[in-house]
């Protein structure tokens, strides 16, 4: 069974611990006076972050946990505060005494620590990487995040689904359409309505366009991190063109506000023409890039994630598919009918992740051609019903899981698990045989979100 998420929800007298697996959802009640649970981390290493987060958020004690350090709450965060509890209403915290975080580190003769971040060298999101080094060799890496924690889960409580949307779509800018589609699915479930096919196609088109923008950027950035800047110029030009198409279709370069229930005009002829151009450009790019031995010398066998470990750590998305896992939320009749072919590689290295992105861009172009049509349908929304809803979307990074509880018409608990939340926890496994200079390349080949992870 694959672990998808583990999180808590506050009830009247208890906490409900919800564990989402591939096939089932398990629920467990623990009293608020004695909120104690057992760890799942022995079987599922990726449960560690979920459990540490649960402790920070609600004060739930994981009795047999082997890692009891705080996760979201950092050095200056006031102690014994559990902000996701309903009785916590403070909106301004004072910094308290600095209590150092104990990094996982390897010690020994000649082993030293390299601390990188939270502010990195380039134009990137903040996060921290702590390396244990023996010379150039990376012995161990601890990834530490949550610098961008904005308290989105708390922020959305008490809001209607409509009020929550502007925040949900800004959780992670690279995956805005994917987040909005999750929101849309939950809205439809709560109002017990079906989406007209034309709208579904429009939304799927936008999701693929978002994927193409993200992948094209990476297809430039990954070679750039291996010292091949020309690819970045080429990739970023194509990404910019795609981003302008997004603006043409939705009025926004990142598609904020794009997923709704109304019809919009699409100039299909112009868009189709652009898709053809992009297809040619990508073929040219592939021809060119596959033919540069010095580049593939850096890509091949760098940053390997074995199939076994990809499975054990429940990785998702591009990272999983590059390691031979057939995991994609788009495997369903709707997508298959519109030309979906799952991208897959087996070597699990930087080169494999690069190739998966390349395949996915080409496949997305084909699918966008099929999704393209003059849209004519609008959905009149009926009122929503209370209940617990959840949904999945395949974002450009991987499987996105969102769960929303609605009580008295407003959000009682908002939970989202970005694909990055799983993949970040597997990042340290990829650098066992590499040197620290390869780290940016390996990290970029995964291109995970910090904002979506930190919430």
């Amino acid at each position, binding site marked *: 069974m694959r672990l998808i998420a583990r999180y808590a929800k506050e009830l009247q007298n208890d906490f409900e611990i919800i564990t989402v697996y591939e096939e089932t959802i398990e629920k467990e009640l623990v009293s608020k006076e004695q909120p104690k649970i057992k760890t799942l981390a022995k079987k599922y290493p990726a449960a560690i972050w979920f459990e540490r987060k649960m402790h920070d958020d609600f004060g739930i004690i994981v009795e047999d946990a082997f890692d009891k350090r705080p996760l979201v709450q*950092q050095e*200056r*965060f006031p102690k014994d*505060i559990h*902000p996701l509890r309903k009785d*916590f209403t*403070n*909106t*301004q*915290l004072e*910094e308290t005494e600095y209590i150092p975080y104990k990094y996982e580190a390897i010690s020994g003769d000649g082993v030293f620590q390299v601390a990188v971040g*939270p*502010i990195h*060298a*380039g*134009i*990137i*999101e*903040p996060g921290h990487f702590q390396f244990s080094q023996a010379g150039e060799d990376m012995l161990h890496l601890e990834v530490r995040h*949550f*610098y*961008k*924690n*904005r*308290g*989105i889960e*708390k*922020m959305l409580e008490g809001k209607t689904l409509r009020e929550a949307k*502007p*925040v949900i779509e*800004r*959780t*992670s*800018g*690279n995956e*805005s359409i994917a987040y909005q589609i999750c929101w849309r699915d939950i809205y439809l479930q709560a109002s017990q309505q079906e989406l007209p096919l034309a709208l579904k196609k429009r939304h799927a088109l936008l999701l693929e366009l978002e994927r193409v923008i993200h992948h094209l*950027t990476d297809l430039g950035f990954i070679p750039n991190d291996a010292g091949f800047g020309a690819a*970045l*110029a080429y990739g*970023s*030009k194509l*990404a*910019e063109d795609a*981003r302008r198409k997004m603006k043409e279709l939705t009025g926004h*370069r*990142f598609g*904020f506000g794009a997923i709704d229930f109304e019809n919009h005009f699409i100039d299909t002829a112009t868009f189709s023409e652009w898709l053809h151009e992009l297809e040619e450009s990508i073929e*040219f790019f592939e*021809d*060119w890039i596959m*033919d*540069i031995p010095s580049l593939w010398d850096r890509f091949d066998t760098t940053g390997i994630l074995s199939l076994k470990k990809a499975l054990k750590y429940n990785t998702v998305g591009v990272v999983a598919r590059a390691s031979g896992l057939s995991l994609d939320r788009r495997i369903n009749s709707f997508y298959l009918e519109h030309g979906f072919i799952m991208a897959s590689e087996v070597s699990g290295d930087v080169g494999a992740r690069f190739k998966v992105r390349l395949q996915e861009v080409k496949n997305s172009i084909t699918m966008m051609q099929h999704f393209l049509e003059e849209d004519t349908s609008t959905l009149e929304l009926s009122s929503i019903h209370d209940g617990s809803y959840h949904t999945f979307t395949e974002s450009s990074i991987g499987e996105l899981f969102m769960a929303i509880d609605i009580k008295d018409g407003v959000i009682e608990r908002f939970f989202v698990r970005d694909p990055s939340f799983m993949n970040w926890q597997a990042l340290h496994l990829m650098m066992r045989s590499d040197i620290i200079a390869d780290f940016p390349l390996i990290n970029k080949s995964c291109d995970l*979100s*910090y*904002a979506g992870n*930190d919430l």
Partner: protein
Amino acid sequence: MIKFWNKRVKHGVLTENIELDRELEKIKKEIQDSVKKKFAGSLAIRMVDSGSCNACEAECNALANPYYDLERLGIYFVASPRHADVMLLSGIMTFNMTPHAKEAYEQIPAPKWVISLGDCPAMQAPFEKTYAINAPAENHLPITHHIAGCPPSPLEIMQGLLEFLRKI
């Protein structure tokens, strides 16, 4: 590889529609002149993300694509605050990032300026105040200039930089 060189010789410099090109050209020229005058031809920017959704960073990265090519005008994004003249601050100033953003500012040698980027640092984005947010950024850092937008487009960022250059 031969294909690549053929294409390169055949296509030359990337141009857009003429109107936008003229607008861009005008802005580019003014920025270049101003950077030359006020920063001896080289303006170094340290970008600090204090809790954005990454859209502002994506747009700053887009400034380097062949359409905008900001570096040609003498404006560089640098890897360390100690090399910087200006801090470009994006994000909503989370509780967790506040001390780090302040520290980065301390590390910039004087004279120095802070430009806030996007609606988040001004607390204008749809995010509402929670325990984890310390915005607006002006409570923590001296902001010289603000570039609004969610996110501002590359062109808007360039216009914003120009306004900043005119201001100082």
